[in-house]
C-alpha cells in the first residue's frame, strides 16, 4: 500500500530531528581540557618554606569518584589540620594532582580554613590520578617580607572518575514523577476512549465570552497581556493557549483584539496563534499582524507603555494571563480606573492578591493551566486535569502520613526525599 506523501515527509523530518538530538547527545559539550595550563592561582609563595613554622599537615585524605554525575570529577575530603582552629595558623588548604605517584603535582583546587573537602572538576574518566593536600598558613613575618608557608602532604590514590547511569538520590522523586505522569496519561487515554470527565466550573473562564461581548457592544478594544516572561515559561504557554480561545471569540464578534508583548518570541507565537484562531472562525482576512506588537523587554517600561495605552484608548476589556511580577497591580489598577472589565490569571502566588483586589475575575494558580484545557472542551485535555487530581491526592496522603510520623515521633521520613546533593 502506498503511504500518503505527507506521512513520508513527516517521517523524514522526525528522523532529521532525532539525528539532531543524537548529535546533541553524542558530541560532548565544551569542557576544559584537563591538560590546559591553569592561570596564576591564588597559591601562596612556597619558595620560602620554613618547615618549622609550617602548619601541621592534614592527618588523612580520602579520594573518590564524585557520585551521581556524568564523570569528570573527583571528590577529595580530608581531616582538618590540628592547627586549623578559629583564628589559628591555618589560612586554607591546597589540593594538588599528578598522573603518577612520583609525577609532577599541580594545584587543582583550594579551600578556606575549616573546610574539609574540595572537588576537582578537571579530570578525565577512567584515568588514574594521585592527590596531595597541604595546609597553608596565614602571613608570617620573615625578615622584610610577609610570607605564607605550607605543610607537607602525603600522596593518596590512585583514583578514577566515572559516570553513573542513574542518580540514586532521586529515586523517590522518579517514582513520584512516574506515578503522577502515569495517572495523567491514564486519564488522557480514558478520555480518548470516551469516558466521562467532569470538570468543575471556573468562574473567570465562563466570563470570557461575556467580556468579549461587552467590548463588542461598546465598540471598544480588548487588550490581552500575556505576562512578562518568555516562551520557556509554562505560564506564558498557558496564556498563549487561552489567547487562542479569546481570539476565536474576538474574530466571531469582529472586535479589535490587541496583544502588546514584552518578548519577541512571544510576539511571533501569539501572532501564529491568533492567525489560526481567525482562520478557524472563517475570518482570516480580519487578522492584522500589528494586532500583536512588541513594546520592550524591560519590566516597568512595559508596564508604563501599557498604562499609557489603557489611559489613552480606554479598552472595554483587559485580560492578564501569564507570569506577572511587581507590575501586576500597576497594570490592574490603571485598568480598573479606566473602567475596563478585567480578567486575570497567574501562577505567581505573590501577585494573586493584587489581581484579586483590582480585577473582576482571577484564575488562581493551577486554574490558569486548566483554563486552556477547559476552554478547548477536548476530552484528552480534560482527562489530563483528572490525572493531575490523582497526583494531588498522592501528595495529600504523603503529607498527612509525614505529619503523623513527625508529630508522634515514629520515624523521620525526610531523608528519603533528599534536597540538594
Amino acid at each position, binding site marked *: 500500500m502506498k503511504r500518503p506523501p505527507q506521512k513520508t515527509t513527516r517521517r523524514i523530518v522526525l528522523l532529521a530531528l532525532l539525528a539532531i538530538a543524537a548529535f546533541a547527545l553524542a558530541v560532548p559539550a565544551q569542557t576544559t581540557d584537563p591538560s590546559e595550563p591553569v592561570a596564576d592561582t591564588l597559591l601562596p609563595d612556597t619558595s620560602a618554606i620554613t618547615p618549622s613554622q609550617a602548619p601541621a599537615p592534614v592527618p588523612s585524605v580520602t579520594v573518590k569518584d564524585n557520585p551521581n554525575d556524568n564523570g569528570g570529577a573527583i571528590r577529595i575530603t580530608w581531616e582538618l589540620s590540628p592547627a586549623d582552629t578559629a583564628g589559628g595558623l591555618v589560612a586554607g588548604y591546597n589540593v594538588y594532582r599528578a598522573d603518577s605517584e612520583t609525577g609532577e603535582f599541580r594545584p587543582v583546587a583550594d579551600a578556606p580554613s575549616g573546610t574539609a573537602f574540595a572537588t576537582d572538576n578537571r579530570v578525565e574518566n577512567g584515568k588514574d590520578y594521585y592527590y596531595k593536600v597541604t595546609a597553608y598558613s596565614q602571613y608570617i613575618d620573615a625578615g622584610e617580607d610577609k610570607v605564607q608557608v605550607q605543610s607537607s602532604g602525603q600522596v593518596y590514590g590512585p583514583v578514577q572518575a566515572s559516570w553513573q547511569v542513574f542518580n540514586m538520590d532521586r529515586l523517590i522523586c522518579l517514582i513520584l*514523577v512516574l506515578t503522577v505522569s502515569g495517572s495523567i496519561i491514564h486519564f488522557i487515554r480514558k478520555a480518548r476512549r470516551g469516558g466521562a470527565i467532569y470538570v468543575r466550573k471556573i468562574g473567570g473562564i465562563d466570563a470570557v465570552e461575556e467580556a468579549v461581548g461587552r467590548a463588542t457592544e461598546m465598540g471598544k478594544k480588548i487588550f490581552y497581556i500575556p505576562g512578562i516572561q518568555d516562551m520557556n515559561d509554562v505560564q506564558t504557554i498557558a496564556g*498563549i493557549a487561552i489567547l487562542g480561545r479569546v481570539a476565536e471569540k474576538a474574530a466571531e464578534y469582529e472586535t479589535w483584539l490587541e496583544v502588546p508583548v514584552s*518578548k519577541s518570541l512571544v510576539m511571533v*507565537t501569539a501572532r501564529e496563534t491568533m492567525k*489560526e484562531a481567525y482562520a478557524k472562525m472563517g475570518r482570516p482576512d480580519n487578522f492584522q499582524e500589528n494586532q500583536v506588537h512588541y513594546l520592550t523587554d524591560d519590566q516597568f517600561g512595559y508596564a508604563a507603555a501599557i498604562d499609557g495605552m489603557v489611559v489613552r484608548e480606554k479598552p472595554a476589556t483587559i485580560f492578564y494571563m501569564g507570569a506577572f511580577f511587581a507590575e501586576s497591580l500597576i497594570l490592574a489598577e490603571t485598568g480598573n480606573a479606566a473602567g475596563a472589565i478585567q480578567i486575570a490569571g497567574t501562577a505567581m502566588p505573590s501577585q494573586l492578591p493584587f489581581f484579586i483586589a483590582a480585577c473582576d475575575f482571577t484564575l488562581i494558580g493551577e486554574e490558569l493551566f486548566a483554563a486552556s484545557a477547559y476552554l478547548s472542551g477536548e476530552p484528552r*485535555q480534560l482527562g489530563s486535569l483528572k490525572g493531575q487530581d490523582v497526583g494531588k491526592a498522592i501528595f495529600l496522603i504523603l503529607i498527612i502520613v509525614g505529619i503523623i510520623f513527625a508529630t508522634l515521633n515514629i520515624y523521620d521520613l525526610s531523608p528519603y526525599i533528599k534536597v540538594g546533593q
Partner: protein
Amino acid sequence: MRREVPLIITSIAGLVFAISFFIPLLGDAQNRFSDWVSIVQSFAVWLGLLNLTKVSLEKITRKREGWQYAILTVVSLVIMLAIGMFDGFSGLAQDPPVSYREPGTNFDWMFRYVYTPLTSTMFAMLAFFVASASYRAFRARNFEATLLLVAGFFVMGGRVPLFDLLIRWFTDYPLFNQFADWIMTYPNTAGQRAIMIGIALGIMSSSLRIILGIERSHVGGQ
C-alpha cells in the same frame, strides 16, 4: 508540517530535560540545548527591536492617535543604541579594553541618571496603587476576608517598627514583630506550599500535554 516540526522539537527537548534530571549522562545534551536557548534568545532581541521600530514609524507617518509618543520612542531608542555602540567600540580600542557598562562611560551615565530614575518611578507607583486598592477593595465582607484583613493589618504594622514603637511605653518586647514573623513563617508558608504544590502539578500536567503534542495552541494549532 509547519506545526509538526516545532511539536517534535518540543517533545524531544522536553524529554531530554526531564530525563537528564535522573540520568547524569544526559547532562551534556541538556547543556547543549541550554546553549541553543541562549543563542536563540539573543537573536530574538532583534525581532522585537525591528517590530517596535516598524510599528512606531508607521504610527508617525500615518499620524495615528498618540503618534507624538512614537517619536519619543524612536528617538530614545536611537540615542541609547548610539551611545552604547560608541562606548562599546571606543572601549574596545583602549588598552585594556573597557566595557561600555563600566563606571565612567557615557552609557553608564545614561543608565544611572536617566534609565534608573525613570524605571524606579514606575516601580514606586506600586506604593500608591497598593494604598488606593486597599482603600477601595480591602473590606471585611465575610469571615475569610476578615481573616485576611486581620493578618494584613498585623503584618503591615509588625514588619516595620510601627506597632512596636507604639507599645514602647508599656514594653520593650517586640511583640508585633514576633507576631508578624509568626504569620509569615507558619500560615503564609503553609498557604504558599499548598498553592505551589497545585501549581507544580498544573505545570506537570501542562508539560505532559505539550510533550505529548495534545496541547498545541502555542505553535498556532488548536
